[in-house]
């Protein structure tokens, strides 16, 4: 049974390598995209922290900025 699943009448090497390549591509693309996202969000938090009085008010008034910061908080929980 196990042999049949892995060997697949001699086609196992082709089938498993095609599926493995697909899974590896998915994994790589997901992690690269995730890393890029986290990098940009970290940059945003750093820049936001450096803002002074009036600039903070302006930045906080924008809904999208609030959402980005909310995302940072919720991902830390």
């Amino acid at each position, binding site marked *: 049974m196990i042999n049949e*699943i892995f060997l*697949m*009448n001699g*086609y*196992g090497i*082709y*089938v498993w*390598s*095609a*599926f493995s*390549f*697909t899974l590896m*591509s*998915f994994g790589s*693309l*997901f992690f690269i*995209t*995730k890393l*890029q*996202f986290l990098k*940009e*969000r970290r*940059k*945003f938090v750093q*820049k*936001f922290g450096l*803002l002074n009085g009036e*600039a903070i008010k*302006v*930045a906080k008034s*924008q*809904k*999208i*900025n609030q*959402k*980005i910061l909310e*995302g940072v908080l919720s991902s830390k929980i």
Partner: protein
Amino acid sequence: MLNFLEPNRIFVITSKAPKYVFFLFVIVFSIGLTEALFLSPEDYKQSHSVRIMYVHVPSAWISLGIFSIIAFLSILSFILKNKNLPLISKSLAPSGFVFNIIALVTGAIWGKPTWGTWWAWDARITSMLILALFYSMYLLSWKIFKNDEKVTKISSIIAILGVINVPIIKFSVDWWSTLHQSSSVKILSTTTIHTSMLIPLAIMTAAFTLFSILIFLMKYNTELIKIKNKGLDRL
């Protein structure tokens, strides 16, 4: 006119959506893999090698679909001068490119036991390779040019020129004598693939679509934060 495409509105949805899409993707993909690798029958001619179809065909379909959407959005951005459309296109391109590469590589792996060769300069394979080149040019244009207006124009031109290749890929098997068989899954006429194989193929296509949506959402959120970072510099 395109108020719903305003980034502030979209971000409310796109910032929350990835976790739900990811969850759904894991479920559908697990079912798809079980069907494709263990439950679906082997082919009477190709034996178990037919299972490669469940990753090869959906990848090819999605890479073609994404490129067509990118080209359509590029034409729209020329007409409507909307700045969000190129951002959507840019966020779609990485998953389209990866699916294109998966289609080429799994196709080569399938070709060896079926045709006796990893590669042939067959019309379908060659036109898919050309699509990969257009994807590369499109993605490179965003890396090379820093001026927003210039990069939008250049990348849109690449997408519009590249989409000419899409019907060539689709009909290459009918127009030329190729190693590829003609389409088994048809929208307008009877599908010639058995249900026992059509169901896993449909499930895997759904899973791959969910994955491309997931990557699109993550990439789009990254692009919006990038823009906001530039905005903070100006404050």
